[in-house]
């Protein structure tokens, strides 16, 4: 594994989690539906979405959750573990349509971000608590959340 492992001692309150960029597309929604088993047509059928008061097809909340999980698991590396995870789907996000079979149309890009809120040793576990969120193209936090991770210690 090429990636450098991060340790408890490397992290301070206020440290930033490296930003993860994502583009939600209708194609990604279909892929996500198939892989996750969530076939709610709200996420891929325009006419059904029109009945739901959402202003059109919206990105699966759980897909945004999975982006945030990736943000965290990319950061904590192979020796890190996620202990707790939470997020709320506060704002709706609207996927880009496809311009070609493989390329999305121009539009919004989403940023997954995080900062370290607290660190502590509890029951021998080196715990780091983070605030995490998904930001839409306007910089609005549509999906705020939090994660508690266990990091390896250099002293262990």
């Amino acid at each position, binding site marked *: 594994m090429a990636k450098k492992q991060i340790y408890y001692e490397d992290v301070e309150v206020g440290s930033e989690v490296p930003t993860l960029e994502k583009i939600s597309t209708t194609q990604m929604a279909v892929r996500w539906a198939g892989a996750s*088993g969530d076939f709610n047509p709200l996420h891929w059928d325009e006419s059904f979405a029109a009945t739901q008061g959402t202003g059109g097809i919206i990105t699966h909340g759980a897909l945004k959750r999975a982006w945030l999980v990736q943000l965290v698991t990319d950061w904590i590396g192979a020796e890190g573990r*996620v202990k707790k995870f939470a997020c709320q789907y506060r704002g709706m996000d609207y996927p880009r349509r496809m311009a070609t079979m493989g390329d999305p149309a121009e539009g919004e890009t989403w940023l997954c971000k995080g900062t370290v809120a607290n660190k502590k040793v509890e029951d021998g576990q080196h715990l780091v608590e983070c605030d995490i969120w998904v930001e839409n193209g306007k910089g609005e936090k549509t999906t705020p959340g939090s994660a508690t991770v266990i990091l390896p210690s250099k002293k262990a």
Partner: protein
Amino acid sequence: MADESIMTDEIKAMIGTLSEPVIMEVGRVAIRRYADAVGDENPLFHEVEDAKAAGYEDIICPPGFWGWPIKGRATIGGMSIVGAVLVKAGLFRILDGGVDQEFYIPIRAGDILTAYSKIADIREREGKAGKMIFTTVETTYLNQNGDTVAVNRATIIAR
């Protein structure tokens, strides 16, 4: 009119309801396909050798993935338990509100999970768009050894 509760007795009576257990098979293909759908190339979710080097028996699930149902129907946050009752009460606009999860043991390819869901709470709240019903479905996942591997609390918002 605006002050009228949208909570029906039938909805309220759902609190405490248990679902039929759902059996989830955790296969390598399912894990990889899920990670691919997210655009997540983490080798722990793809490469057996990398997962083994990190001390796991096989590739592991990204936290929040529970495999694929082989018995029973797993719907988002146990929506199947309350969905019909909410729709019957005229609350047909149903959204996923969020999750709160605890992970105890990493889930790996080869695991067979049993998921037990219950309606932990149902409450009415006033939002920008008027009154809404918030339902919390708590799902506990056990592995083939009987160990609790994770607990997932999902919030469903209906209006």
